[in-house]
């Protein structure tokens, strides 16, 4: 049979059914893998030791707490990165050439640098406390980590904002000008409200990427989900538990990031304007 890969026929928006089924399927495959590895661990364990399930259940709440810390970090870096990124993105379409060019250069620089290197950058080069007018502001490691992760986020948000603004047809600018709107008014009242909608899907996508990148903070010694998983494995020193433990952590991230990815796709489809 001739079966080239074909786009499926354009279907009516299927609502929630398909994504839920698909996610459920992947999750089920995941669960089977997890169960199999756990069973294997159970079988290969030393006879005197505790059962693999008991050990896993003991550590699961702590790993989950670590995972929640990852989520917290992701919220905070996303907030900081978005604020800085929106400013940089608007600066990228500014009419003032030096501002536009420097915003472009900064965006490109931070967008093309690896996240881990930027994280190191923030961790090592920021002081651990600030002194302003005799007031000492402590700067603990996790705050520095948030700043380190916010740097690439800001650069990516900057590109999203620039792309969103650029995607608005130039006729909008021209008609606003014809109606005697100032540039600032055009930007805030006409362009940004329209562009905002188109920026949401890539912004959400970036958030999912950031959430997955938060595990990088374990490399610089912050107690996140990955660090705790490793510590648990060291504490138990049972090599057969390694696969189930890591799968558990992967499962947590998957359960959190997959719905975001589906929602991004759905929104993209809804906002997609076919020319």
């Amino acid at each position, binding site marked *: *049979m*001739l*079966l*080239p*890969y*074909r*786009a499926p026929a354009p279907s009516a928006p299927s609502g929630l059914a398909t994504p839920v089924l*698909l*996610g459920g*399927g*992947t999750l089920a*495959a*995941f669960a089977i893998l997890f169960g199999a590895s756990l069973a294997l661990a159970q079988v290969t364990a030393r006879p005197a030791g505790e059962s693999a399930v008991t050990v896993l259940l003991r550590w699961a709440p702590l790993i989950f707490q670590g995972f929640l810390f990852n989520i917290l970090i992701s919220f905070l870096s996303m907030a900081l990165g978005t604020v800085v990124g929106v400013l940089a993105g608007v600066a990228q379409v500014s009419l003032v050439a030096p501002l536009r060019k420097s915003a472009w250069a900064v965006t490109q*620089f931070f967008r*093309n*640098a*690896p*996240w*881990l*290197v*930027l994280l*190191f*950058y923030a961790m*090592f*080069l920021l002081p651990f406390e600030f002194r302003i007018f005799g007031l000492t502001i402590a700067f603990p490691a996790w705050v520095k980590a948030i700043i380190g992760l916010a740097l690439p986020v800001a650069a990516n948000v900057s590109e999203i904002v620039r792309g969103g603004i650029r995607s608005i047809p130039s006729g909008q600018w021209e008609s606003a000008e014809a109606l005697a709107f100032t540039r600032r008014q055009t930007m805030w009242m006409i362009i940004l409200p329209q562009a905002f909608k188109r920026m949401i899907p890539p912004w959400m996508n970036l958030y*999912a990427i950031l*959430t*997955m*990148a*938060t*595990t*990088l903070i*374990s*490399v610089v010694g912050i107690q996140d989900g*990955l660090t705790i998983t*490793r510590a648990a*494995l060291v504490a138990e020193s049972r*090599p*057969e538990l*390694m*696969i189930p*433990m*890591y*799968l558990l*952590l*992967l499962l947590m*991230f*998957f359960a959190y*990031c*997959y719905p975001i*990815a589906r929602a991004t796709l759905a929104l993209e489809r809804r906002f997609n304007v076919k020319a």
Partner: protein
Amino acid sequence: MIAAFFERLNETQGLNFSVFYDAFDASRFLTGLWTTSYICVVSILASLALGLAGVWVAGGGSRLGRLVVRGYVQFFRNTPPLVQLSFFYFAVGGLLPRVSDGFGGLSPPVSGTGWAIIAFSLFAGAFNVEIFRAGIEAVPATTVEAAESLGYTRLQLYIHVVLPLAFRICLPALNNNLVNLVKTTTLAYAIGVPELLYAASQIWSESFNVREMMNVLLVTYVLLVGVLVLVMGRWEKAMRIPGYTT
């Protein structure tokens, strides 16, 4: 001359760019650069092969194959690459039996670099499947039908008609993913692979020049990515189909 300049910079300004005048640090840095490039090139090639294989299976008649590819893509796209790498290196690699290394000792069958390449290839390959799929979907159905009616087999159709067109369509997205892959290689630091970041951290922990090395490192990566973007951009232009894309 460059060495002399940086040596004087160190003496007068206290800016210690040891990689530019100290032969030992320079060789360590270059080794790191070599390892990073090696991981990049091998992972890029392997991820492209995986992407092609994935899209081939996903487009095939087997329902099971389709499901497996879908699960693979969703799994690798929605979990942190660092945890994937840890999973492969510590969990899977830790459970593999040791093999004799020929010098009377026992060593793991796959080195850290090997696991890094495997993990990054699988990670980028998942994205490549999606990218190729989008590219293949964008090939006009009429073109495919015309080729079908000329009696092409599925393999011939792919090699002579679909892939050459799809490849040009998905080059920009591919470009993005490969840049991302180059940036992801820094994660190999976490499992002690002597790549660029690792080499730099060794240098700054001995010479106490974190600030200078950090900047050298950032600039090196931006240059590395810049070279890739430039080459891919040139290629994109050279492969452009006239009148097909904007």
